[in-house]
C-alpha cells in the first residue's frame, strides 16, 4: 500500500541535501524524520496557525501543507539557521528582550514569519505587522509583546545591515 519514495535535492540551511520522500510527506514531517529539525512543528495541520512556518526560496510557507516533493531544487531556511554560535538573529533577540512568547510552541513560526516580513518591509508599521502576522496564532496571546518585538527586530536588523 505504501507508495514509492521519490528522491529530491534541495538546499537546506545553506547545505546541498538529498532526501527520499513519499507523496504524502509534508515539509514538517520530512524535516523532523530525515533531518532531525524540530523547530517547524505541526499544530493545527491546516495551515492556519503558522507553527510550521519555513522559508522556501525566501517566501514563508506552511510546512504542514507544503508537500516535501515540492522542495526539489528549492532553497529552504528553517529557524535553526538563524543564530550563529553565541549570537542570536536580531529577530530572536528582540523576541527575548520584549518577552514576546510564553509557552514558546508558536515562537519559531512567528520568528520565521517576522524574518520574511522584515525582508519585505524593512520598516513595518503596526498595520503591516498585524496583517503579515495574522496567519500566526499564539494561544498564550503574546500579541502586544510580539508587535513590540517585530518593531525592535526591524530597527536592529537595519542597524546591523548598515553598520
Amino acid at each position, binding site marked *: 500500500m505504501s507508495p514509492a519514495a521519490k528522491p529530491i535535492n534541495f538546499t537546506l540551511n545553506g547545505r546541498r541535501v538529498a532526501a527520499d520522500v513519499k507523496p504524502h510527506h509534508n515539509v514538517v514531517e520530512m524535516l523532523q524524520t530525515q533531518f532531525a529539525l524540530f523547530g517547524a512543528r505541526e499544530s*493545527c495541520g491546516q495551515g492556519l496557525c503558522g507553527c510550521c512556518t519555513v522559508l522556501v526560496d525566501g517566501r514563508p510557507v506552511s510546512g504542514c501543507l507544503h508537500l516535501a516533493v515540492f522542495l526539489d531544487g528549492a532553497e529552504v531556511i528553517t529557524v535553526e539557521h538563524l543564530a550563529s554560535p553565541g549570537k*542570536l538573529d536580531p529577530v530572536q533577540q528582540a523576541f*527575548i528582550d520584549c518577552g514576546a512568547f*510564553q509557552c514558546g*510552541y508558536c515562537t*519559531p513560526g512567528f520568528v520565521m514569519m517576522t524574518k520574511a516580513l522584515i525582508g519585505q518591509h524593512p520598516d513595518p508599521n503596526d498595520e503591516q*505587522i498585524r496583517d503579515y502576522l495574522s496567519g500566526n496564532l499564539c494561544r498564550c496571546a503574546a500579541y502586544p509583546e510580539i508587535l513590540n518585538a517585530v518593531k525592535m527586530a526591524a530597527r536592529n536588523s537595519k542597524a546591523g545591515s548598515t553598520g
Partner: protein
Amino acid sequence: MVAATVSGGEIGRSLPRLEGRDKVTGRAEYTHLMQLSGMLHAKIFRSTVAHGRIKSIDTSAARNVPGVYAVYTSDDVRKVIAEPYYGPAFHDQPILAIGKVHFVGEPVAVVLASDPHVADQAAQQITADYDELPAVFDEVEAAENKTLVHDELKPAGTFADLKHLKGRKGTNIALDFRLRRGDVDKAFATAANVFEHTFRTQKVLHLPLEPHASIADYRDDGITIYSSAQGPSFVRTEIARLLGWPENRVRIKVPYLGGGYGGKLYIKLEALATAMSMLARRPVKIAHTMEEHFYTITKHPSTFRIKSGLDKDGRIIARKCEVWWNGGAYADIGPRVTQKSGFTASGPYDIDNVSIDSYALYTNLTPAGALRGFGVPQLVWAYESHTDMIARALKRDPLEFRKQNLLRDGRPQATGTILKDTAIEKVLDRIAERLNWKQPFDRGKGVIRRGRGFAVALKAVISPTTSVAIVNVSADGSTTLYCGTVDMGQGSDTAMAQMVGEVLNMPAESVRVVPRDTDVTPYDMGTLGSRSLFHMGHAVRLAAEEARTKIGDLRRELAEPEGSNASLADLFRKKYGMQAGNIVGTGIYKPDYIPPDANGLTTNATPFWMVAGSGVEIEVDTETGHVCITRLINVADVGKPINPKIVETQLSGASLMQLGFSMFEKMHIDGGQVTNASLADYKIPGFHDVPPVMENEAIDTYQSNGPYGAKGVGELATFGLSPAIANAIDDAVGVRLTELPLTAEAVFRALRAKANKPLEDE
C-alpha cells in the same frame, strides 16, 4: 512565614524568561516532538455515538493493514490492568470504552504501528456497532436524572479537598455543593426589590498549540512516561495505583509544555499510553491532532440562576445562587470546579444571607475540566451582569452601587472566612479612574454607538495543597533547584529561580532549574489555579533558606571570621580538601485550612484571595450587531510582583484568551457531535482581535502571608472581561445579552427584538 530580610535584588526584577534562548531557536523540548528508539505510534478509533452499548468492534481489516503492529480494545487492556478506570475525583473514566460509550469521540480502540500514517489509515478501517441509548446534553436537563449517563459512581479519594465525594447510583449529579448563610427566604420576604436572572456559558476549550502527547516506556521493573502534563506528581500517583506499584517504580518526565491552561491537568493520555506500552512491550507515543482535543477536555458550560433581594437603601440583603455545571461524560475535576467556584458564587459583595447550590453534572459530551479560572469566569459572567442589571433597573450608578455593597477586608465572605489582603475596592477604583467613569461619555448618535462597562471579581485559591522543593548548592557554589511546577509559559522557572537568587544572594540566571522528573523533583500538587507562585514559591524560599542556614553553619564550623568574603567554593574546598560535597536545603509548604461544614461554612477557606477586574470601551455597529472593543483595561491585585514583566504578559494573555471565550469561541454540537472540531471552524484570537488600546495594571499591594508579598496571577485577567463587555453593550445600545458568546448575530437579534422586529426564525 514572611519574606526573608536579606535582599539579593531579585524580587521585582523584570528578568527575561530563562529558557528564552531555547524557545526562539526552536530547541525547547516538548513531548509532542519527542521520540524514543523502538517507539510505536498509537492512533485512536473513537465512538461515533453519544451514548450506546457496544455490540461489537471489528478490528480485522485494521489488523491486516501492512505495517500494523497491533490493534487493542478494552478486552486487551483488562488483561494487563484489571480495573482500568482513572480520574482525579471519580475513578469513572475507562482507558478504552468498556461495554458502553458515553460521548462522541470516546476512545474505543487503538492501532499501533511504527509509521503513524499506517496507524492512522488502519484506525479508519475499524468499525463498531452500538445499541444507541438515550443521551442527555444539557446540564439543567441532566439534573432531572431522567436519562442516566453512568450506572454507578466510584469516588477516587485521592485529593484532600475531595474526600467527601460519595459513591452514587441513579443520578447524574457527581457533586452537589451547598452553602447556607443567614436566612435567605426570610430576607427575600422583607426585601424592597427582588431581581432574578439566568445566565449561560457555552462549551469552549483550551486548544494549546501543542496538543496533548504522552509516551510510555513500560518495563517489568518500572515505567517512564514522558508527558505534556501539568501535574506530574498526580500522574505518578494515578499510574502507580493502576499498576498496583509503589510510586518509585513510576517516573514521569515533563519537558516544557506548549500551553496548558488547565487542559493538561491530572491524567489525560498517560493511562492509555501505559496500557499500550504494557501490551506492546515497546515504547508507545500518543500524540493528538488538534481535532482530538475537542474529544479530550473542555471548559464547563454552565447555567446560573441568580436572585438578589435589596432593602430600600439599595443594600443587597439576600442572594440565592443555583449553578449547574455541564461536566460531560467523565467527572475529571468537575467536582472541584463545582465546589471551589461554588463558594464564591455570590461575588465580591457583603451579603448577610446567602444560599448557594452548585451541581456537577454528567452529560453525554466531551468531559469538562479546569480551564484558567476553575469555573470562576462563568460565575463572574453571571453575577457581574446581574449586578449591573440591578443598578440599571434602580437607576443607580453601577460603580456607586457596587461600592455600597462591596466586600471589604475584615468582613466575612459567604463562607464566613474573614477577608484579608484583598484590594477589591482599589481595583474597582483604578478601573473607574482609567475609564474616566465620572466624566460624561459620548455614546454616539448614528449607526455606531459607544458604550463602556466594567466588572470585578474574587476567587479563592484551592486549599489545602502541598508543594516541596529542593535547593542543592554544589561544591563550586553553583546552585540547582528541583521543583515540580510545570513551566507551560507562565514563567514559573524564572520566578522560582529569582526567589532562590534572592535568598542565596546570587543572580537568578545562574540558578539551574531542573526540568520536571518525578525521579528527582519532589512532590507538588499540580500547576493549577494560580497556586504555584504562592505554594511552590514558599517551598522554594524555605529550601533556599535552609541551604543558607547550612552555609552559615559551615562558615562557623570552619571558623570563618564574621564578614569574611570566602566564596562558597572556598568553603567547600576548605571543608573537603577539594571541590567536593553538597549543601542541600528542602522546603515543604502546606497552608492551614478548615474544610467547610455541612452548610458550606468555614473560617479558613483559602490561604489567599485573588482579586481582579476589567473595564472596556466598545463600539457597536447597530446595522450588523458587530462589537468592536476599542479599549481594554485589566487591573489586578497580585500582591508584590516577583517579575513585573511576566506578570504583565500573564494579565494581557489571560485577558485576550478570555476575549475569545467572550466574543466568538464556541463548540457547536449537534446531537452530541462536535461540528466545528478544527481551527478552520473554531476561531481563536489572532492579531486582528487585539484591541487597539490595552492597559494592564498590577496595583501596588502586598500579600502578608505570601512569599515576598506575592500571590498568584495566571487566571486573574480572565475573570471580569465577559460581563464588562455585556455591560458595555447594554450601555451602548440598551440590550442585555445573558448567554456567551457575544457574537454580532446575538447582538443583532437582541437589537431587532428590542425594536419589536424580531428575526423571522425566532
